[in-house]
């Protein structure tokens, strides 16, 4: 396991070194894109978080690319984003006019070997990646029994509004399972906002939200004393360790809670599986790709464009409101993020596939 990880890290480091070399020359090789239209396809509907993400970056990228090409966001929803990803797999080159954006919901089916997946992440060229975090919280009564460990929660019964066992909710469900908590998911809601509403109505008594959802929707409940934050999923440092989420520095991470809880271990198959899916779903959640076989000069141009967006003086300010205070990776950093988000050991995969089948009767075939 650790061997695979270190090989992966070495590979990633190599990629960084190489693309840094390219990036240095990016300006001299920049492809003039004036008059072109960059179509950024998002495999979700107009209404989701990925749409918000792409719509935020599109006008900024347009300004930053040489020749200011038009950047339009197109939506191709279907089959939990596998439809769009399968389409992107068939695209060739495109001279920078074809770009694609994935999310955790595109990574998870790929990692789990979903039968609908006919795409291969390793063929694509990542140019930008950004992440988010997540926070789990409890209702008032059970929150009082929480002392930084889940030991006091083992006798409570929890109900949770979930989108589906193979969605991003997998990370939350597996975390609670590892803590020995009895959480029954009610499947079939559309989006985490519905889950929060179910919690607010008192029908669910445990919930998790991504960082922006938590700050916008759940904080008022916490402030009013109706909800108690339990833990964040954490964030990754440069060495790939889980550390406290910079957005919630005072909140313990799942790793800390797990260490404090009897019977929960931060090593072994369950932990490795949780970490792999956490990485694919949160810190490297959304990745922008160019299609396979694209000319390196085009890649450099687009990477330089995203780099220019990132180094805008007002970037921190405008991005924190719209896509969250999380690092944005460009070029080599994005390659590393994509590598991490789409690599999983056979043990971790086997563990999750088996757990999904045993706990929820979900078969991936």
């Amino acid at each position, binding site marked *: 396991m650790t061997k695979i990880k270190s090989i992966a890290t070495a590979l990633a480091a190599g990629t960084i070194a190489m693309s840094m070399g390219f990036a240095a020359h990016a300006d001299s090789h920049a492809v003039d894109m004036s008059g072109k239209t960059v179509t950024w396809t998002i495999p979700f509907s107009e*209404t989701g978080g990925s749409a918000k993400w792409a719509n935020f970056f599109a*006008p900024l990228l347009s300004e930053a690319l040489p020749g200011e090409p038009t950047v339009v966001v*197109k939506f*191709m929803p*279907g089959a939990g984003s596998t*439809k769009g990803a399968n389409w992107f797999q068939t695209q060739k080159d495109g001279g920078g006019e074809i770009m694609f954006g994935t999310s955790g919901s595109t990574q998870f089916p790929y990692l789990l070997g979903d*039968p609908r997946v006919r795409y291969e992440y390793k063929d694509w060229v990542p140019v930008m990646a950004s992440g988010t975090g997540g926070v789990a919280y409890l209702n008032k009564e059970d929150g009082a029994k929480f002392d930084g460990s889940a030991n006091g929660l083992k006798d409570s019964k929890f109900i949770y509004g979930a989108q589906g066992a193979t969605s991003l909710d997998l990370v939350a469900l597996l975390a609670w399972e590892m803590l020995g908590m009895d959480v029954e998911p009610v499947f079939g809601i559309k989006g985490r906002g*519905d889950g929060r509403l179910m919690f607010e109505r008192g029908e669910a008594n445990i919930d998790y939200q991504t960082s922006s959802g938590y700050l916008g929707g759940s904080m008022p409940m916490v402030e009013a004393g109706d909800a108690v934050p339990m833990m964040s999923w954490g964030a990754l440092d440069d060495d790939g360790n889980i550390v406290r989420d910079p957005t919630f520095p005072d909140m313990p991470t799942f790793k800390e809670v797990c260490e404090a809880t009897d019977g929960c271990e931060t090593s072994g198959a369950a932990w490795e599986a949780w970490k792999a899916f956490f990485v694919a779903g949160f810190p490297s959640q959304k990745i922008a790709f160019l299609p396979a076989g694209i000319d390196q000069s085009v890649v450099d141009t687009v990477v330089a464009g995203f780099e220019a967006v990132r180094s805008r003086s007002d970037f921190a300010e405008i991005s924190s409101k719209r896509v969250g205070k999380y690092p944005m990776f460009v070029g080599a950093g994005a390659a590393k993020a994509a590598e991490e988000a789409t690599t999983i050991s056979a043990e971790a995969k086997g563990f999750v596939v088996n757990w999904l089948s045993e706990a929820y009767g979900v078969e991936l075939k």
Partner: protein
Amino acid sequence: MDAFMQAVPALGDAFGLILQPVVLGYLILGVVMGLCVGVFPGLGGIAGLSLLLPFMFGMEPIFGLALMIGMVAVVPTSDTFASVLMGIPGSSASQATVLDGFPMAKKGEAARALSAAFSSSLFGGLMGAAFLTVFILIARPIVLSFGLPEMLMMTILGLSMVAILAGRVAIKGVAAAGLGLVVGTIGAADSGGSLRMSSYDIPYIVDGFKLVIVGLGIFAIPEIVSLLRQDRAISKNAELGAGWADGVKDWWANKWLSLRCSVIGVVVGVIPGLGGSVVDWIAYGHTVQSTKDKSQFGQGEVRGVIGPESSNNAKEGGGLVPTLLFGIPGSGSMAIFIGAVALLGSGTIEVGPGMLKDNLDMTYAIVWLLALANVVGTVLCIAASGGIAKLTTIRFTLLAPFLFMLISFAAFQSGQNFADLVALFGFGLIGIMLRRFDWSRPAFLIGFVLSNPVEKFTNQAFQIASFRFRDSTQAGFEYIFSPIVIVLLVITVVSVFLGIRQAKSILAEGDVKSGSKRAPMIFLLAVMAYLVATYWNASLINDRLMGDKIIPMTVSAVALAGCLVLLVQMIRRPETDIVFADREVAGEDAEAAHGLWPTLAWFAGLLGLTALFGFIIALGIFLVSFLRQRAGLTWVHAAIYAAAGIVFMCFMAWSLNRDFPPGLLQDYADLPWPLK
């Protein structure tokens, strides 16, 4: 009381914000754009808002809001044109309008129907805003009291409207609704992801069918084909009878109905996750029940237009409550709206629980911009309605090819897949058969629309209820039988009871003669075969995923039972009995100048050509040959008309940044847009 004290100055601030000439200018711009986009059935708000998104970044918040709200607000108004004039339900908001609006157009009363609809929309919109101004301050606890059992009960109330719309043979209506429900379950289940009547080898079906396609197929295609066969204008005498002023008078005469229906609209619209899909049916049901002479419904009763139209604009206002207070979008366009608000200005407005506390003035500005946009939109629509209504006096054969063009394009937008067109054709066939044999199409559509909510709420409410019962029996019963559930239950029972008693006098789709036994029987057997297949298919799902199989199995069993009763009736009764209703035996369709299949073959031809050459080339061939062959124009005229149609299509697609269906040719040759 505190909240109200704050509200008054905020309301003043809001009007200060809105009533600036620049803001009004943006609002009007948005309204005009919304009207232009709104002509496309099923595209409306979402396409328009996506178009505006790139401009929202950093825009002055109130300008951006005015532009976006102007656009969103008029979509339920402007799609009335398609539903009244062409019988095309543009969105779920205008399904019920078709039932009486289109028959009015056929009677030559298109202008009257339109202006009655617009007056009702305007009134509903204003009522919604006025109601919200107060209600939004106290809405939170009320919205939160609608849990899953309440929403399930509300969905069942919507479903109970089938009783009124079932037609002369009630059991047929039940079977049609059951068929709609099981068709709605096709694809991967929400709960456990099991596949129902689908396979990963045909990815298109895994997502289930979209409402736009089913609505167009079930309502629009049968009407277009029927009119085309008769080769006449939509308006029977090719002239316009009553004018737009009559419509306004009609509305005034029914102002109390309009008031009641707008209250229904706001209240149902407020409930997140339900809103749009049931409200116009509940309003229509209420309209029918509260009308003394029910004989005209389905044949052009103006009250049947006023009721649903009053509710659907009020619903938009109600839908703002979950959107603004909880950050939970009530519809697709509201979801984009939330995303776009975050892009405005410096991003300080965040839709969600903080909205009332931090941005009450903005909240009120949004509510009243919506009302104002309704006024502007309605005035423009009423002004245009007299002229646009003239479309109904044109020979339909000249109109039909362009309608085929429009609905194909609209259908393609829902999934951007050639299969969308195949599905449209398939549902068109089902719609034609349902219409021919007098199976209630509204019942089928209600079943389809409510299929997902019924399944979802049943499963989730059941799961949470059993969780509560494990706690204690009392907690479980308190959860299931809340006061709201009991009230809704009583309303449902009363409405089913009244509905069944009244249904016989309501000929939702006109009188249909009976004749031979063979054709109606074959159709019934085909429906039964499909129901059996659904039951068998669902029964194969792993028992641990009970939530994925219980609804398709139960519904198909109930519908099958209904079909068996029908079958027995068919065997026993003579062929003149109403169970053998068949439009091909006597009446307009039977006496039509053209046959069903040759007419349908034209549409199939368009699809076939599209599969080969892509949409635009296919459209060129189709339009020219149709106008030449079927409509008898000269080659020159046919070419000019066709070119005009294609230019219009390309312009709309280009400005909305949409693609056309590609064909085989596009696989081999790299063509420039719009041919690619």
